């Protein structure tokens, strides 16, 4: 791969992020297969996801001399103003050589569950620009954020070193979605107890054949970041043997389609307002979905005829 054209990638990411439902549907339906590795860091607000993502990206760049990593870091859109302060980058960026690292801050916009609009398409763009890995930081959500599971290979749950956070995570149902647990800020008191709570969590593993390891990490301990990076490699290696790639792709596409359809429902409901006649809402939705169906069929025909 030649030198990265940051300007072109930056602009392409904006276009893909801004794409409306119809355009995004087109992208999803025609998305080529891509081999990019997809890793997500999720966990409670302030658990240290951004700091860890920055350290992890550098560790993984150092481990492979030609590796390129794209980071997509999501922060929440304010429901009141529609604006956002995107604060992840400030914790992960540095003045070091960035020729193989690209960080993009995203606002969640219309998408719930800790993700951002058209996230799947943004990952695909990173692949098209020659990136080997996409590192996703979800919004710091306390509640269930299983959606990211549908878009990535490896989900890392980043946990504060208070066992209260572990209990919270167990209740919320995020525990079962993670492939790796990291008790972060292990330099602070409480980390041992959090690790013990995680190890004693019981229950069957979500994926038969993979027992999610429990690790610790701390920013003043480079070896801890290396261990996490190696555990990621181990999970990726296990997946490439044990998980059906075609099935994964089908599920991802299905998830992206569903997310777009949900967005359309939400958008219509918002534009028409809460006092709209339900029949009117259903009529406009029916028209929307009919036009999507036409779009998909027309594109199928164009493809079939050359």
């Amino acid at each position, binding site marked *: 791969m030649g030198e990265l054209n*940051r*300007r072109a*990638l*930056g*602009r392409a*990411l*904006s276009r893909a992020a*801004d794409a409306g439902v119809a355009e995004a549907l087109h992208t999803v339906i025609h998305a080529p297969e891509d081999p990019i590795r997809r890793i997500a860091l999720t966990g409670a607000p302030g658990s240290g996801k951004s700091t860890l993502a920055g350290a992890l990206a550098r560790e993984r760049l150092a481990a492979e001399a030609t590796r390129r990593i794209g980071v997509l870091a999501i922060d929440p*859109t*304010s429901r*009141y*103003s*529609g*604006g*956002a*302060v*995107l*604060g992840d*980058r*400030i914790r992960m*960026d540095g*003045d070091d050589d*960035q020729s193989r690292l*690209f*960080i*993009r*801050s995203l*606002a969640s916009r219309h998408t719930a569950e800790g993700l951002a609009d058209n996230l799947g398409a943004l990952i695909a763009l990173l692949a098209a620009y020659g990136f080997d890995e996409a590192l996703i930081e979800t919004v710091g959500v306390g509640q269930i954020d299983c959606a990211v599971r549908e878009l990535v290979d490896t989900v890392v749950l980043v946990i504060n070193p208070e066992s209260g956070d572990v209990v919270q995570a167990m209740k919320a149902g995020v525990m079962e979605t993670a492939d790796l647990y990291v008790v972060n800020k292990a330099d602070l008191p409480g980390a041992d107890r959090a690790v013990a709570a995680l190890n004693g969590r019981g229950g069957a593993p979500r994926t038969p054949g993979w027992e999610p390891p429990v690790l610790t990490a701390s920013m003043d301990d480079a070896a801890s970041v290396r261990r996490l990076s190696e555990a990621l490699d181990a999970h990726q290696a296990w997946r490439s043997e044990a998980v059906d790639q075609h099935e994964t792709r089908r599920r991802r596409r299905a998830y992206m389609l569903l997310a777009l359809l949900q967005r359309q429902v939400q958008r219509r409901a918002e534009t028409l307002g809460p006092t709209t006649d339900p029949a009117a809402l259903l009529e406009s939705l029916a028209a929307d979905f009919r036009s999507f169906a036409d779009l998909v069929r027309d594109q199928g025909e164009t493809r079939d005829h050359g």
Partner: protein
Amino acid sequence: MSAAASKLAGKRILIAKPGLDGHDIGAKVVALALRDAGAEVIYTGLRKAPDYIARVAVDEDVDAVGLSILSGSHVALVEETVRHLKAMDAADIPLFLGGTIAKEDHATLRAAGVVDIFTSDMAIEEVVDRLAERLDALQESRA
């Protein structure tokens, strides 16, 4: 979302602090005001080099960069930032300036490529309004 709240809807703005001064209360106040006007705001943190700021502006594909400078070295820092933006094929990203900026430097700064200058004595609402107007005008002139 009220009409007033969405003046900067759909805009991505980088607030950057080049140079050596160690105060960013002003920059943070502006960042929050822009968010409240509907913008997606990225803040660099203190003491960033012009080449770093230009790279972040490009990677984030922002619609505007606001430099906050209190140190007095604004002319050199602006010229450096413009140079790096040009080198990254991003001379079209408009540059705004805020902070303590002596009147006699304004003409030089505008000649160097600064679209507008917001001094510390301006009310925050005025900053938001003027920025929104400038960006709308730029968008129209390019359409």
